[in-house]
């Protein structure tokens, strides 16, 4: 595997795409060596691929905890710094604390889910990538790399599986 070449195979529909994935598996490509690019979210199972791993939920949970800590600081830490009496109400009110803590927890959860999505996907990145605008027209593309010596074998297999085109992928500005 000294020299590898990256191909972009375009498919019209799920059926041939899943067949293509199967062929690539048969040719000895592991799931890590290929990626599916599509215009709509496709569950990995439909194409016979493992489900992608995401850390967004975990990051969001961390965010929720941080948000909660911040909320608790706001409602119980701030009055400690400068206690002021209002309307005979307690300095560290529990009912009001629930409201602020809730809001801040949710803000932390969602803010970190948003940031987590960026971090986990590597957004924003404006570097050249293997892509073709046809993908956002609904085509399904399989991006895979194979040894340069075997490239004909792979191209033939995918064309047989129903690929519209199998072309060497070039990184381009999106």
């Amino acid at each position, binding site marked *: 595997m000294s020299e590898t070449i990256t191909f972009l195979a375009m498919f019209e529909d799920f059926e041939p795409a899943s067949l293509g994935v199967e062929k690539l598996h048969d040719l000895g490509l592991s799931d890590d060596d290929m990626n599916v690019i599509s215009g709509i979210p496709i569950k990995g199972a439909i194409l016979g691929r493992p489900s992608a791993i995401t850390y967004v939920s975990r990051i969001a949970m961390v965010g929720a905890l941080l948000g909660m800590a911040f909320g608790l600081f706001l409602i119980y830490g701030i009055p400690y710094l400068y206690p*002021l009496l209002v309307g005979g109400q*307690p300095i560290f009110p529990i009912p009001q604390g629930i409201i602020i803590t809730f809001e801040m927890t949710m803000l932390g959860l969602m803010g970190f889910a948003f940031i987590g999505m960026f971090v986990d996907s590597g957004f924003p990145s404006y570097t050249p990538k293997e892509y073709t605008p046809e993908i956002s027209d609904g085509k399904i593309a399989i991006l895979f790399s194979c040894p340069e010596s075997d490239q004909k074998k792979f191209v033939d297999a995918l064309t047989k599986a129903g690929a519209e085109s199998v072309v060497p992928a070039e990184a381009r500005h999106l």
Partner: protein
Amino acid sequence: MSTNLELPMFTNNSEAELGGRWGMVIDKDLCTGCQACVAACSMENNVPFVGEEDAGYGRSMQWIRIERLWEGLDGDYREVKMTDYQPLMCQQCHNAPCEPVCPVYASVHSMSEDLNLQVYNRCVGTRYCANNCPYQARVFNWRDYADYRETNTADNDPRWSVFQNQLNPDVTVRRRGVMEKCTFCIQRIHQAENQAKAEGREVRDGEFTTACAQACPANAIVFGRIDDPESMVSLAAETSRGSRLHEELRTMPRVTYLAGGA
């Protein structure tokens, strides 16, 4: 910093400290509705004059107002009856509804004097406190009534020369957009306390009084320490004629109204 143990930490102290510190008694039977207190208050506290038009639209900024209510307006004019004159100012509630609703601690309780405070420069003008005051005792600076900047000189505003010189230096001049209200003449309280402290004694009852009480020709308003059972105000409040406004709201006002005498 060490935490103040006198503060209610997790629960309300609505039942605590029923006594209070400064208080007032207003005898409605003695009040003649002469408005001297209103004038005196405005002078003492730099309360601006809003003009005829604004006053007519409900923007007069009196910290104390004389309420008069009529009964029997639906019937014959001979049946129309007027109720007592009721001078009304901030009741300095112990559990003041105006305080907790302020988002920036502009309306805050003075723990040392047990008074409601309005910190003018902290006020951002949400006016929530005024809505939440069951006595409608708070007034708002709708315009720059007290705009004494260079641009607003005697040449273009005849009020300038008069008003500039009558301001009380001990009281802040408020600008537009802030809430204000009766302070029980806190500047006089501080002055008396400072004087007493300098002389190494307690403030004597009757040593000073608020501007309204001072101006009242009928002595209908009595001001003093209500935690001192021997003070004039405590003795006056003890009578059976006394009641407080909207006591059912548990705001614990510090002003007692006397009515129903002969």
